[in-house]
């Protein structure tokens, strides 16, 4: 039996028109043929096999699929892959280097910012967009910036602490 997720594959049947797009994903140009209805979240997960981007609600509510699109956070379940042609996308796979965690990832580890981890990639990318613009946010500003991302485990307290921890570390590193 085919699952729901087999219905749209990264390589659609030969009679379906596709468009060739080139998207900069975590600094690497990726050229793929997509049918217009393929969502960016599904291109990332199924087409490019980058499953760090999670799809939670699929209805533009939860923010688990948040990625950075030209540096700004968007819900990748609510953008067509074809729309990303010529743009840059950063996913959670782009955060850590080969040898070290990104300070935001480290913050989530230090402050226990995750339980099940499902919302975490989206939280971290929303946090990254915040800290790039506002390196020294208040707790309120962190809560506000993350208000489009749902977590059902933590009660948010430790997520907010994680982001504040990361902010402090990033400030220290840039001095």
């Amino acid at each position, binding site marked *: 039996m085919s699952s*729901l997720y087999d*219905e*749209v594959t990264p390589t659609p049947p030969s009679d*379906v*028109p596709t*468009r060739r797009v080139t998207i900069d994903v975590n600094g690497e140009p990726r050229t793929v043929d997509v*049918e*217009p*209805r393929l*969502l960016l979240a599904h291109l990332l997960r199924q087409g490019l096999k980058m499953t760090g981007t999670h799809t939670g609600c*699929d*209805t*533009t*509510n939860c*923010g688990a699929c*948040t990625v950075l*699109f030209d540096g*700004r*956070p*968007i*819900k990748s*379940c*609510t*953008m*067509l892959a*074809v*729309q990303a*042609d010529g743009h840059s996308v950063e996913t959670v796979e782009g955060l850590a280097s080969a040898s070290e965690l990104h300070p935001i990832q480290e913050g989530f580890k230090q402050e226990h910012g995750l339980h099940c981890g499902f919302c975490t990639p989206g939280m971290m990318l*929303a946090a990254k967009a915040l800290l790039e613009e506002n390196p020294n946010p208040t707790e309120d500003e962190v809560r*506000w*910036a993350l*208000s*489009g*991302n749902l977590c059902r485990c933590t009660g948010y307290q430790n997520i907010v602490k994680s982001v504040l921890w990361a902010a402090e570390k990033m400030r220290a590193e840039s001095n």
Partner: protein
Amino acid sequence: MYPSRFGYEAPKSIEEAIGYLTAGAGEAKILAGGQSLVPMLKLRFAAPEMLVDINSIPGLDYINIGADGSIRIGALVRHEDIERSEELKTAQPTLAAAAHLVADPIVRTRGTFVGSVCHADPQGDWAAAMTALGGHIVVQGPKGKREIAMKDFVLGPFQNALAFNEIAIEAVIPAPQGTPVGSYLKLERRVGDFATASVAVALNIQGGNVVRAGIALAGVGGRTIDATEAASVLVGKPLSEDSILAAAEAVAAAAEPRTDHRGSSDYKRQIVKTFVSRILTGIANSEQKVA
């Protein structure tokens, strides 16, 4: 969830986009921010044959504030552009107050102001704000441009006055007479939920008197509710406790709330009354400080 299959074009000019709409003969739809359209495609509430993506059209992302205080907002201005505009904070307080209450911060990076107005959701914040402001939408079709006043633009829930081959290219807020004051309040269960009730207030004050009073409501009826007639009790005099109470009661009476999981009809009407009164009292107090 997947949308049904559709064709896709990303034109580089408004004229080219109109060409695709015309060729689509009613089966083509404009894609701007997509924050309402894409969810509707996924739920298959909408199944157009063609999407015409206007995001590649240059020159539609402007917020122009004229010397007379009129404001023009292009079709690709995102919610967050409104939220971040320092100029709008003083030039248009109703918009500035509503901006950070639209959807959630991540939706705001992508969704557009004009697209939200076109979506004509009865719970939409911008349609209510534009109605209170007495604004209009400039639309362009094969025969050129025309203006549609907000009261004629929203025809019903999710219905706007655009012809199938027309594009809403900008939203216009007319020049104020005197000083524009106002605010926007929204009750939502959590960030990103639809409004339980929202109130947009846009006044013009000249020589201490209210010379124009626009009030509109979202979430308390089957469409955006224009309560400007109810607000007319404010016009021609300074704000006073009596006029504020009279307006709050008249506006609450103009609401058409329905009981649902967000609250009872009576509760929502009470919220409208409280919000109108709270916004107007806030304005009256700040006016006193200025005087």
